[in-house]
């Protein structure tokens, strides 16, 4: 069989006729995912190499060679894959999961080669932190070369972009959730995602200018071009990785970061409509109102807790609140005492995160709004069991399958948090710390704080504790379903193969 394929390949190569068969959907999607992962790391590596060359710091050569090699491999693989006419939805999600895992492994190895981290396991953790835009990094950023800093920041930015593509362009078009995607224009507004390709273009139309605007704003505050770039990439992607120095000493920088983080937590559909200057009807969105009121409420709680109503206190409160709700997770120190309600509120805010279709992590507000309405419907159904009451979100009636999926998402989110808490607690942490780490990892937020608000330093955590957080970060960043769909697909295929193998063995045994 393999010699026939080789011959086919040779024949098509010499004769010019295309005789190669298309690959199966899952094989093609996995290979494309792998190729995309290589390309993503390769691009970031070349950017890091260019930075090291400009600033004359070491490891420029390593980044350059790695970047070229990865880009070549990715490009060749992309050309080699014989794509089927259409990929199945589950296989697309599988491919994206493969892309994410590829980035984590390859980028982690590159971090070891460039001496950003001392071991491969820490490299995996740090690359996972970057690509999933979680702010639980334990690296001393002051000790990193300029290239390594750009490499990490670039991975964050790529992770943010991937989140948008997944949440706005890909998942909503795969069956359930289609009714909530912005695929049809209303009142003269262009839709954000009429198709996958158009969605990707529109997303870049917002994400790129937002990144550039933040970069310019930070640079103009006196931070400098390089530090401004790092901070802009960290804010726009809700990555929250620290930058050298202490840029938030400056009130102006903090205010710009607050605006940037708040925008990053807003749904891209809202930003798209703002970009088209179509603001009518926006305020009717319950999700947007919850988001703004939630941020305001959390900030007010922090101010009340500190018992300080000055402007500086307001700024610090707004910073911590927007950082928590957008799941950016900058490790800001508390500016006053914390009443017991504050850690609970911050943990909930991080777990819920921003609006659906935004760059932020967490469970998202839209499913929460849907679940609240579902609860109300369930209470009404207890009184009137035969009642038919469709659910509406943003005035749009929602399909029951979409509702079902949101309920399952809640269940899986909580299950992920609990499983991760258990795994972390088994490595020696207390229940509270394990729960905090699990919630922040799944919501891709940060930092983990003690009850008085002091952020914990992940560098003090053991390697095993950090490694068990990686699956939660990946699952959380990809909104749980893709990772679990891939895992169950692999499980189902493995089970089938084992079953077939078992049947063959039993058949052979009977014959003999």
């Amino acid at each position, binding site marked *: 069989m393999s010699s026939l394929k080789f011959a086919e390949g040779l024949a098509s190569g010499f004769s010019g006729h295309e005789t190669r068969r298309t690959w199966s959907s899952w094989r093609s999607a996995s290979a494309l995912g792998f190729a995309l992962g290589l390309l993503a790391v390769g691009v970031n590596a070349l950017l890091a190499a260019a930075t090291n060359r400009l600033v004359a710091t070491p490891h420029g050569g390593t980044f350059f060679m790695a970047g070229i090699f990865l880009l070549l491999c990715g490009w060749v693989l992309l050309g080699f894959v014989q794509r089927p006419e259409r990929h*199945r*939805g*589950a296989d697309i*999600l599988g491919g994206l999961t493969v892309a994410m895992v590829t980035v984590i492994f390859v980028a982690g190895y590159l971090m070891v080669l460039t001496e950003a981290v001392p071991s491969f396991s820490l490299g995996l953790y740090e690359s996972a932190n970057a690509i999933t835009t979680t702010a639980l990094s334990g690296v001393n950023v002051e000790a990193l070369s300029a290239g390594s800093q750009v490499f990490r920041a670039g991975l964050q930015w790529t992770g943010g972009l991937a989140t948008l593509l997944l949440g706005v362009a890909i998942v909503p078009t*795969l*069956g*359930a959730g289609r009714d909530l995607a912005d695929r049809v224009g209303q009142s003269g507004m262009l839709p954000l995602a009429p198709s996958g390709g158009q969605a990707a273009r529109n997303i870049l139309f917002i994400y790129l200018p937002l990144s550039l605007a933040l970069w310019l704003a930070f640079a103009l505050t006196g931070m400098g071009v390089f530090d401004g770039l790092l901070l802009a990439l960290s804010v726009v992607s809700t990555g929250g990785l620290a930058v050298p120095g202490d840029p938030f000493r400056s009130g102006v920088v903090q205010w710009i970061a607050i605006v940037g983080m708040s925008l990053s937590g807003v749904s891209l559909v809202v930003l798209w409509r703002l970009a088209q200057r179509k603001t009518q009807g926006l305020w009717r969105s319950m999700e947007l109102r919850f988001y703004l009121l939630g941020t305001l409420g959390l900030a007010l709680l922090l101010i009340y807790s500190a018992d300080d109503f000055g402007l500086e206190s307001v700024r610090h409160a707004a910073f911590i609140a927007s950082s928590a709700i957008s799941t950016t997770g900058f490790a800001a120190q508390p500016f006053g005492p914390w*009443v*017991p*309600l504050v*850690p*609970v*509120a911050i*943990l*909930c805010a991080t777990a819920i995160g921003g609006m659906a279709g935004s760059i932020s992590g967490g469970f998202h507000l839209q499913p929460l709004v849907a*679940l*609240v309405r*579902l*609860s109300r*419907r*369930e*209470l009404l*159904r*207890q*009184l*009137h*069991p035969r009642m038919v009451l469709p659910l509406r979100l943003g005035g749009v009636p929602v399909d029951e*399958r979409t509702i*079902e*999926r949101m*309920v*399952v998402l*809640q*269940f*899986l989110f*909580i*299950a992920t948090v*609990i499983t991760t*808490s*258990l795994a*972390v*607690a*088994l490595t*020696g*942490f*207390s*229940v*509270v*710390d*394990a*729960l905090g780490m699990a919630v922040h990892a799944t919501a891709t937020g940060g930092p983990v704080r003690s*009850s008085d608000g002091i952020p914990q330093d992940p560098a003090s955590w053991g390697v095993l504790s950090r490694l068990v957080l990686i699956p939660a970060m990946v699952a959380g960043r990809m909104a749980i*379903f893709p990772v*679990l*769909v891939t895992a*169950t*697909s692999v499980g*189902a295929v493995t089970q089938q193969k084992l079953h077939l193998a078992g049947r063959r063995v039993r058949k052979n045994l009977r014959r003999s």
Partner: protein
Amino acid sequence: MTAYRLASSPRWSSTTWHITGIALQFVALGMLFCSFLEVNDGGSIVPLLAAGLFTLAVGTVARLSTETGKTGQAEIFAAVGGTWLIVSVFGALPYLLAATFARPGIGFPVEVADALFESISGFSCTGSTVFGAHNPIESQGAGILFYRQLTQWMGGMGIVVLVVSILPSLRASGLGLMSAEAPGTGSADRLAPRVTDTAQRFWKLYFVFTAVVAGALLFAGMSVFDAVAHALTTASTGGFSTRDASIGYWDSANIETVLIAGMIFGGANFTLHWRSFNKKKIVHFSDPEFRGYLFMLTAASAAVIWILFANGLTFGRSVRAAVFNVVTLGTSTGFGNATSTMSDGNFVLWAGGAQVILLILLVFGGCTGSTSGGVKVLRLQVGLAHARRSLRSFRHPRAVFPVFLGRRPIPDSLVERIAGFMVIYAMLVVGGTFVLAALGTDLLTAASGVISSLGNMGPALQNAGPTASFVDGYSAPARLVLAFMMLVGRLEIFPMVLMMVAPYRTLRHRLPRL
């Protein structure tokens, strides 16, 4: 004469008050019985006697002056929720009259709050207590102690089930009432064609089970009083004890073994027990929920044993501490076997991994149709099957996958109801944690307290562990919030949340238009 006049005069139509009246009469009988125990122990007869007579009078008036009215869904919720609330309030009277929770430095409102808390914790079979080092349980008389145990025994099978068992006039609505009080006792679990017979059989089984546990505890070394008292709270998976150190007071492996068996039995579906008894063979293992329940207890015990052993405890001590505490929390009983604050059984000192496992057990509890609380194993199994179906639908978007439990397909309407229930439960946990944190409770104490109260477990983590009192961990207003959560959890949310709908409709209908 007055009773005759009441009985023959035109009656007010109110299902809630009619059922409440009967329930109060039962509770009053319990109070009166306990008053004799108190006298026998050398205490004062007045508090329990006065409380009993007053409750009996109110109950009798309520019963005789009312008749069952409409029994629509809203009225059923009002009846169940209202009955439990009113019975719990009257149930606090003996504590108040006996000044059980009076102590220097606390005002009367706090004393009332504590009495209500203890009463609700009793009837809801939660087992959380405001007794502690500042006010030891052993300082109370036998009457109060036995009354406390009796409240859990009555609440275990269900006050409304008790009423339905003697009230044939309820007919079809009796099943609705039973299902509203304990959803596992619905039409699928009927033990007899008539709902009154079903309720009576449940009570008979419950009574026999209690007697067997009492006999076993007596044989294991407890005194008669303690054996009967603990049998009452084992059968109801309530967890109240006549000792401050709970079961740790006896430090006896034999007693703990009896209780473990009793708690596992109490946490299983009583319909299975009845069927086994009737068919004279064990049918439990054919039920997927029971198998899941045993698997959960076994797996949790094994994991905790391993963690404790890995943290330096000997194997024997690990097994004893782990199995007892896993079973007591997994069945929502809440007994403790810690002999002191530093002993093996004090799980707030355990490694984080073991505590997380206990926290998970706090959520899920036992089987439907049992006396235990929590979300219930069946809902967890259906939830997992539902999630699995959703993941499979990504791979096969056009396929139709029914949800199976064992070999039985679960109707989509039931899957939806269970999903809705779990969503509301999660929101109550988060909301309750918020409220308690606003009242000054730290995160873990608040969250575990809410989960424990909603699941009618008993102890919580951090400042409300097995050797602590809820006075240590929570302020008086926080304790009242937890008490409300206990009732919400015992009645599985809907009756307590929806009980005001029917009275509101009645009020709106009867108010003259202005």
